[in-house]
């Protein structure tokens, strides 16, 4: 389109080109954000296979619905939102089929971490985090993952999750409270490194609304 876009097309430009029939534009877009999208899906689902399913569903959905993108938010926000929805939807289907769960989020069992299923999970502390995250209700987990683990701002997270910023803060706070007992044995290891404030994250909305 423009000269600058020909050098490094923006997300919005790629999405528009995809909607206009460019067969490669969406692939470029996916590659550009795949790492973070994968992290979101994996952290929310807590299972690599489920994350792969959710991410694939989300990408196909985004592929097909690109024409509906109205540009009211950044493309990244839109993509993350679809991935979060796909992940929660998958968990919803799983929970609907699960037996023995009372429905109370506090009664969710602490699942055993799955060794070797995540290429980046090799440490004990990492598995502790995985296990701890599983104890959270998915909505709280999603908020905590976005804000605390992936560094998104509360505002960005609220747009992605489709809830108010207050709700995001509340979910994060509650999630941290629930994680505290699970991670207390690790606090000493990190207390000395904890000089930075609780970051609301780094805003990734570089496009200013796509």
């Amino acid at each position, binding site marked *: 389109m423009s000269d600058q876009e020909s050098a490094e097309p923006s997300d919005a430009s790629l999405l*528009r*080109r995809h*909607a*206009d*029939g460019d*067969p*490669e534009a969406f*692939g470029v877009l*996916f*590659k550009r954000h*795949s*790492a*973070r999208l*994968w*992290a979101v899906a994996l952290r929310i689902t807590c299972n*690599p296979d489920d994350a792969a*399913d959710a*991410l*694939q*569903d*989300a990408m*196909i*959905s985004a*592929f*097909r*619905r*690109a*024409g*509906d*993108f109205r*540009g009211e938010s950044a493309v990244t926000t839109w993509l993350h*939102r*679809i991935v*979060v*929805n*796909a992940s929660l*939807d998958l968990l*919803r289907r799983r929970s609907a089929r699960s037996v023995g769960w*009372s*429905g109370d989020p506090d009664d969710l069992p602490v699942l055993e971490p799955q060794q070797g299923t995540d*290429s*980046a999970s090799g440490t004990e502390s990492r598995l502790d*985090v995985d296990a701890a995250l599983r104890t959270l209700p*998915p909505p709280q987990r999603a908020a*905590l993952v976005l804000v*605390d683990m992936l*560094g998104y701002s509360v505002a960005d997270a609220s747009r992605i999750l*489709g809830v108010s910023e*207050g709700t995001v803060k*509340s*979910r994060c*706070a509650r999630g*941290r409270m629930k994680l*505290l007992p699970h991670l207390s044995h690790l*606090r000493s290891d*990190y*207390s000395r*490194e*904890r000089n930075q404030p*609780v970051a609301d994250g780094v805003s990734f909305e570089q496009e200013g609304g796509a």
Partner: protein
Amino acid sequence: MSGDWPPEWDDPEEDFPSGAEQQDATGSAEMGEARLAEVTAYLVSVPAPVMPDAVAARISAALAAEAAARAANSTPAADGTQAGDGTRAANGTRAGDGTQAEAAAAEGGTGAGATADGGRTLGTPPARARVRRHGGGARGHHGFRSIPVKAVTSVMAGLVVIAGIGYGISRTNGSTDSSSSAASGSASENTFAAAAPEASSASSASASSAAGAGSHGISPQFVVTASGTKYQAATLASQVRARLSHPPVASSPVASNGGPSSVPGPSGTSSVPAAGASKTAAVGVAHAPTTALRACVLHLTGGQPPRFVDRATYQGDPAYVIVTSNHVWVVGLGCTTANEELITSVALGS
């Protein structure tokens, strides 16, 4: 986040972060913010997982299958660029070789199956957890929506053409000139509409440029019509498709200068009136775009000449409707390159 999830997932107090909630959230004095901050600091320190290559390849293959399917579906209606890329869509994926392409087809089936269920929940995300989702379900109805709309549109457009011809005949009270002009006008429009899908952007540009140069001598690549059409969000795509497939019948020619004139010439540039030629009443008077509008349009279309630009209303508000072979933008009347005033956009591809 989602009004559809199990109610057990909802925390009844999370929407009220003040008062007791805040006290609870921030923890007691014993626990304090410091300890919670430690949790955050620890979570931040956990490295982000790396996507396995197998997953990346799998998703790329699924997307390649989607691209191939879309190219196949859109070939009859696509312009030269899109149709020509159909093969590349199948082969030019990150997955790469033919084996992957076959796998992509198989995976695509799985993906489609999954999305049939996911379509309901992966639709337009809700603005608020308890707000009913709107516009969702498009995925599951993707194939359903495209085929019947085309069929229905064709039938309706055909009826409009027939009615228009009959109306023209009755209005002219036996004047064979007028009735034939209506017919010829319709024929020329249809010729243009039928030829356009097969034509490349270049051919459209040449046709538009020729007409534009003839009408105003400033060689715009397109003109702006003022049909007065009342576009609606729910029917935008079908309204545009209807006009693309069957442009309005020239039942009552109106000259561009407001006076009576002869019928449009059979130049195949029906939506772009030549100098002194008339414009159909339904389409209204065409005029050259302003510099700002022209820049805005070409900015949106990526330099591609639009099939038409129509000054109309969208959801009751004045707007420009900009249409290419496979996309529609609705922008405000103040559309410029810097500020598109984009109201909405939809794809016409499939």
